């Protein structure tokens, strides 16, 4: 928890915040799919930090700026994920962990959330908050925060825009924006809890290249494999994944009239309104 005493008996304050991040594929339309499993082939694909995870990291760093403590990023990714984890240190994370092992490959969201949740329990048992981005730009499921909450049996809040902690009570107040209802809701829980940050809700701070280079030169990203985690084979990767991609097909567009008008704007406007009136979709 947030108050710990060190070996000299000095109380150390602050929050321990874990920010799980994902290596997103920058250009999702140019990827290759495995012909057998239909899974995305990530090996050899240039990876970037999922843009919405930068909002999560900014959210966590602001809490650290205010209350002290540390921000730890982690990612289940192929070995090439080291680079974007160095970027998270460049943005201000204190530590970064790459969770990588061939045994994790082919995971759906259930197996991924299991790996993330159990890794956090084993590596950082004293965490106060886990802060996620709302979703990833390449798969857009928004599953991970709720699924990790389920594995860890913790309260969780999506679409968070700000948070305030009361360290002495181990309490966190999270305000979220519920877009459907046009309402801000504030939840108050005992820590630890899981927070998912509303996308684009804050401007993420700039990356310090000096910090990033320092992270690379000094090998600050720690690499963890399943020999260390010892997660059960049946619970991870393809074997821990109940969903299968049974088939893939090209998306077919609906047949459209595809009538085109080029020319004088006045005539174009008249042509358009005449047709829409004929279609009965605007009032005559």
């Amino acid at each position, binding site marked *: 928890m947030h108050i710990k005493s060190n070996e000299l008996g000095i109380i150390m304050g602050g929050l321990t915040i874990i920010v799980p991040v994902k290596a997103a594929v920058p250009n999702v*339309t140019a990827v290759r799919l495995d012909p057998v499993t*239909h899974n*995305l082939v990530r090996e050899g694909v240039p990876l970037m930090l999922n843009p919405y995870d930068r909002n999560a990291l900014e959210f966590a760093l602001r809490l650290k700026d205010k209350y002290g403590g540390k921000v730890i990023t982690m990612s289940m990714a192929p070995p090439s994920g080291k680079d974007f984890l160095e970027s998270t240190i460049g943005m201000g994370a204190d530590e970064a962990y790459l969770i990588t092992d061939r045994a994790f490959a082919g995971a759906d*969201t*259930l197996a991924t959330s299991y790996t993330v949740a159990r890794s956090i329990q084993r590596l950082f048992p004293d965490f106060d908050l886990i802060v996620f981005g709302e979703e990833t*730009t*390449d*798969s857009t*499921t928004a*599953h991970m*925060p*709720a*699924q990790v*909450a*389920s594995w860890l049996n*913790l309260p969780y*809040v*999506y679409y968070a825009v700000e948070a305030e902690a009361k360290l002495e009570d181990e309490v966190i*107040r999270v*305000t979220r924006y519920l*877009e*459907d209802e*046009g*309402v801000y809701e*504030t*939840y*108050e*829980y*005992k820590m630890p809890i899981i927070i998912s940050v509303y996308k*684009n809700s804050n401007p993420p701070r700039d990356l310090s290249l000096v910090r990033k280079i320092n992270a690379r030169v000094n090998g600050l990203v720690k690499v963890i494999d399943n020999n260390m985690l010892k997660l*059960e084979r*049946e619970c991870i990767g393809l*074997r821990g994944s*109940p*969903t*299968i*991609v*049974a088939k*893939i*097909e*090209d*998306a077919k*567009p*609906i047949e*459209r*009239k*595809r*009538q*085109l*008008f*080029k020319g004088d*704007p*006045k005539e*174009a*406007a*008249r042509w*358009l309104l005449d*047709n829409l009136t004929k279609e009965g*979709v*605007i009032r005559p």
Partner: protein
Amino acid sequence: MSTAQAQQKICSEWNPVNKNEYKGIWVYVEYVNGVIKDGSLQLIGKARELASKINTDVTAIMVGNNLGDVVKEPIYYGADRVVYVDHPALSKYIPHVYANVIVQLANKYKPEIILFAATKRGRELAPYVANSLRTGITADCTELDVDPKTRDLDQVRPTYGGNILAHIRTPSRRPQLASVRPNVFPTPPRDTSRNGEIISETLDSIPSINGQGLVEERPVVKGEELPPVEKADIVVVAGRGVGGVDGVKLLTELARLLGGTIGGTKNVVDAGWLSADRQVGQTGKTIRPTLYIGIGVSGAIQHIFGMKESKIIVAINSDPNAPIFQYADYGVVGDYREVVKELIELLKSRKEP
């Protein structure tokens, strides 16, 4: 160990599943202030269709406090049964509490399929429920079907940028969970002559909140605003090509004159020219208005997925090769400012005879 044995061994944190024990299709029905969300009603319609293919029934699940007559509504829209939990401890929506209630119900009744409308709350609840039942879930399906032989739910979802449709199945686990964005399916008609069973369910224990839970609700103060994109019959959508806030203002005037509303692409929202609740597309709202007018919209596939079910599609763009024209019924190639100004003039002159 033989291969067959190896395949049968499951994660020790999963419960063994006998698929034959799981029957029926559930829809989690979300409501606010006594009104059921359109997305939930639409899923009742879809569930009805799926149920007839595998000869089973449709159950609506409702959770809350002082539900009153709203529990009858799912029957009118096609449900055979409503199972609801009404308890003072559920008077406020708490994500993990509501999710755990649904999990307890699912463990008791063992449905084979559970569908969630992918509203903001639905997206928050569904993955927790799926995970707690140690089963799979597919987000934002655009089509659902069911295999009469295996009773597997065929969950179709655009993936990797939207140019590929993936058919996802959960062959070895039950229940099978999927979420669907509002307005992907039509709302079934309300028929008050339909009858069904209404069951009030009590739980052994309501999960604890672990804190105060929801302590404050603050509605956003809105001025005189156009309706939300998912509610309007006519939607004018601004793309990056409108150039900035001034362009969006011009389009808003057009939308107002047409009696419609204004929306935008992801680019326009990310640039801050429009609020996020007006974003149309795969990561925004799915709309199916009678008239869609895309202006300065190039037609990225992620956007197309949010509007392709519109009845009539109009595109105005200066680039004759913009992909949006492939999806449009009527296209105008030209400077959008000039065309929109002419449209505004014409509409005004129609109104003032």
